[in-house]
Every structure is written in C-alpha cells, then in structure tokens.
C-alpha cells in the first residue's frame, strides 16, 4: 500500500490536525516508511494461528451494575474552555 499526498491530506483532516500543503509530501513519505516497516510482518506465516490479543492470559475485567461514580459536575467541567449553567459550551454545531 502506498500513501499519496491526497491520502495524507485526508488522514490529517480526519484527525483534525492542520498540515500545511508544503508538508504533505514529507508526511506521505513518512507514512509509507512506517507502513513499509510494518508490512514486514506479512512475511510471517500465521496460517492456523489465533490472533494474540494480550501477552498475559487475562479475562476481561467486569463490574457489577451498581452506581459508584458521578455527582461531580464541577470537576467534570473544570477543564472546559467554556461552561455555562452546568453544560459544556461549544461553538454552534447544528447543521
């Protein structure tokens, strides 16, 4: 797989990261280097091998259906650039 400038632009846009047009060729090249490195894994024969999801044999940790958290609106809002009447306030997003 090869990443061109258009794909690099799209990826940056989806991640909401501003990349100047002049920087796109270098970014695309960087992506390609990373993908090329990872593609080496394709050389390994994994026929019949289950995907490994964890290096330790663990079961997914569960919680009971009990309320143990919440009731801290001030703390939740404390990092917000703008908050009013208990809500996060953000630039209008309605279409």
């Amino acid at each position, binding site marked *: 797989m090869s990443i061109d400038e258009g794909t690099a632009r799209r990826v940056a846009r989806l991640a909401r990261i501003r990349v100047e047009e002049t920087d796109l060729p270098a970014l695309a090249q960087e992506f390609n280097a990373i993908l090329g490195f990872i593609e080496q894994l394709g050389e390994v024969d994994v026929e019949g091998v289950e995907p490994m999801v964890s290096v330790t044999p663990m079961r997914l940790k569960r919680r009971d*259906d009990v*309320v143990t958290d919440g009731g801290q609106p001030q703390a*939740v809002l404390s990092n917000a650039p703008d908050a009013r009447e208990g809500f996060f*306030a*953000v630039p209008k997003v309605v279409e």
Partner: protein
Amino acid sequence: MLDLSYEAPAPKVIQGATGDWELVIGLEVHAQVASKAKVFSGASTQFGAEPNSNVSFVDAGMPGMLPVINEGCVAQTVRTGLGLKAAINLHSAFDRKNYFYPDQPAGYQISQLYHPLVGEGEVLVELGNGTARRVRIERIHLEQDAGKSIHDMDPTMSFVDLNRAGVALMEIVSRPDIRSPEEAAAYILKLRQIMRYLGTCDGDMQNGNLRADVNVSVCRPGDYEKYAESGDFSHLGTRCEIKNMNSTRFIQAAIEVEARRQIAILEDGGQIVQETRGFDPDKGETRSQRSKEEAHDYRYFPDPDLLPLEIEQAWVDDIASALPELPDAKKARLMEAFGLSDYDAGVLTAEVENAAYFEQVVSGGTKRDGKTAANWVINELFGRLKRDGDKAITESPVSPDQLGGIVELIGKGDISGKIAKDLFEIVYTEGGDPAQIVEERGMRQVTDTGAIETAVDEVIAANPAQVEKAKQNPKLAGWFVGQVMKATGGKANPAAVNQIVSAKLGL
C-alpha cells in the same frame, strides 16, 4: 405453534408513471439498555438528572481513564438476544468507531463491528387480519450512547450534556425483510414489547430510549423474490439510510416520502446514490446529510483498552432459564386457557403491565371467568382510566384483586351486570372490598323467586288496567319487568323476573 396460522402480508406497492414499485426496508434499532450504571463506567443512567451530574471521568473522555464493562449490560443484551431467538456469541469484541463530535468526548464510540455479542435471530410481527411478517435479525451489538447537544439555549453556542454519554445501547440490525411503512412501525413496536417483557429496555420513545435508522430502497415486483431466493443484493435497488428517528409516525412518513423520491429519480432516468439522509417532519421531506458522511470515515479498529468479551455457555443457560414468558407465548396461553379472542388477548398482552394486571384479576378466588375478566379490564377499566385523565394501568385506583372480586360476584350470580357497573364506580371512586360493599349497601341480586314473586304480585295488583292491556298485547310484559326491577332497586335477577311476569300474566 400458534404462529403457523399467519400468512405473509402483501408488500406495499406504489404506482409510478412507468409501472409498479415495491418497497424494501431494513431497520437498525438503537435500544437503550435498562441498567443502573453505564456500560463502561459506574455513573448513573438516570434520565432527567442535572446536566453533567451523571458523568464519570471515563464518560468525559479524560486522558488515562480506562473502561470497565458492566456485566449487567452484557446480561441484558444476551437476554434480548434470547428473546429474539438469536444465537449468542460466547466470544465477542469491542471496536472503536472514530469520529469527532462535541457530545462524544473520547473522539470515538466503543462498539462491536467485527464480533457482535448476538448473532442471527427473528421476530414475528403481527399485522392484523391473520397476517404476520417474519423479520430476520442479522445481529445485535452492544455499544455506547453519545451525550446530548442542545442548540437552542444560546444564539452562537451549543450546550453539551454528557449524562447520556456512555449509557449502554443495543443496536438491533434487521435483514431487509420489511415491506411497508406499517410493517416498519409494527416491527419496532414488537421489539419494544418483547424488550419491555424482558425488562431489558424501557422503550420510552419520547425520551429517546428507542431510536431507529431506516434503510429504504425500491424495486420492481418480482425482484425481491429473486433476492430472497439467491441472497444476491444486486436484485434490489440502491438504498438510502434515514437517520435517527424516535417516532413510529415519523418513521412511516419518512419511508413513504423517501420511496417516492427514489421512484421519481429512477423514472426520470436517474440513479440513486447510496447516502445518509435526515427526515424533516415539518417539511415532509428527506434531505441529504452527505456533509456528515465526509467526516464519517470511521476507521474502526479493535479497542486496545478492552480484552475480548468471553462468556460461558452455563451463564447464558442460566439467563435463558430465567426468561419471563414472552408476548407471543403469553397471548397463545391466554387464548387457550381462558378462551379469549385473538383481539382481546392481543390487547391484554400489548403492554406487559396490562397482562400482569389481567392475570392477577383471574388468579385467586373462585368463579373468576376469564372472558368476563377480559371484558371488564378492556372495556370498563381501560375506558374509565381513559376518562380519568388517561391514567396508566399502574395508577389504577381499582386494584386487580378488587376487580377480581367484582368479576367473582358476577360469576357467582350475586350481582347483575348492571349493578356490577355501579359497584365498579363505587370501588373506583371510594375504594373498599367489593363483596363487603355489596353486603353493606344491599346490592345483592335477588334470585330468591319467592321475593320476586311477591314483587310481581304487588305490581300486578296495583295495575289492573295494564294487566288487561298486556293480555291483548304481550309486548307490554316488558313494562311489568321494568316496574319490578324498579321496585327491587335493580337487584332482581332480570331473567327470573321475565319468567315470573310471563307466567303470572298467563302469556
């Protein structure tokens, strides 16, 4: 099984300028899981709380916070799957669906794209007149709900409340088996009914408990059958998805206008573009939301914060063995055990609370006739509740035991149907034990023929002229019956009065 007697309904046909068109519809229903805590945090799911008060740092997407799954939500989803006769996947896994939106603070929704918790199932959707559609379920996956954005509190800002962010949702995906707007509405209501019986979703559509995305396409008659036979989607038209509707009325309207829009394009020689659309109920039209799609390249990948969800068959079996009786089975049983009509059994089982009320009315006591009880619940009680500010059955001033008592008094012949209505009104407004009220207020039906005979004799003795007329015209016997009923305060058994009057007058 009862459902063998149903026939598949005919699909809706829309006449176009170039011939007939049929509709093909598939639904993605988002049902909020009934749980105390959210699916990956310990914050409450309580609706209507102060803004941002039911929010943990996990729900707020704070860095470093890790999700821990609520086993109760997993059990509810499994329960729903079992209720829809679906396969339960002992191995499932969570994926991240990435998109930016202010009410989605983590920048992704935890969902299950590749390995859903529940696989294929089916639901029987009754449509009246002995018809029913069997709708296949493709999958149910467990995911997080987003928060809520409020756009009308400020001219330049949107306000965000994260109380709903992280509440568990079941996304129930159907196959394209639905063939008319009415079927789509009936399908959602059937899912709602089943989930309310199971206690897995409150099904409160106004509060957004239950929402649906609707996929609509159109095809020519015969094409759908080709698809059904081969499973080849190329026989069907290109579909459009109408997003996020929480009213069955709007869903039906949206399907209708979307189908007509597609037909107009096709008949004009155009092509349908697969896209996401929104329904505007004020204008009665669907509009493209392609701008949103541009941003919605979700880049799903397995969530590295969560190991796969492994559940044990024994655990699933435990849940299965504790499932309550479901609507179809309950309806069949009420028809069989009490001789109720299809219609009455349908009304009584429509809401789980109605069925519970009816079953308590007929349980206990003696001579509580099922048909009489059904009639009293459906006609008298429902009618009275409706007149009383549309009260819910759970707020009924007459308890099932009280109504059962009234039905019992009718069954024993202690009171007539007419007196029973008076008694019902007394119990409704004043409360009390029906049997005791009947005794205290002397409402018992007189079946003692001696007492009735005396009353008839008195009326005859007092009205010699009428007696002569009645002998000429037997129809006038009714007048004597009326007089006797009046004299006994309506408590005489009408059948007995009729008989005695006829005999005494020699008719």
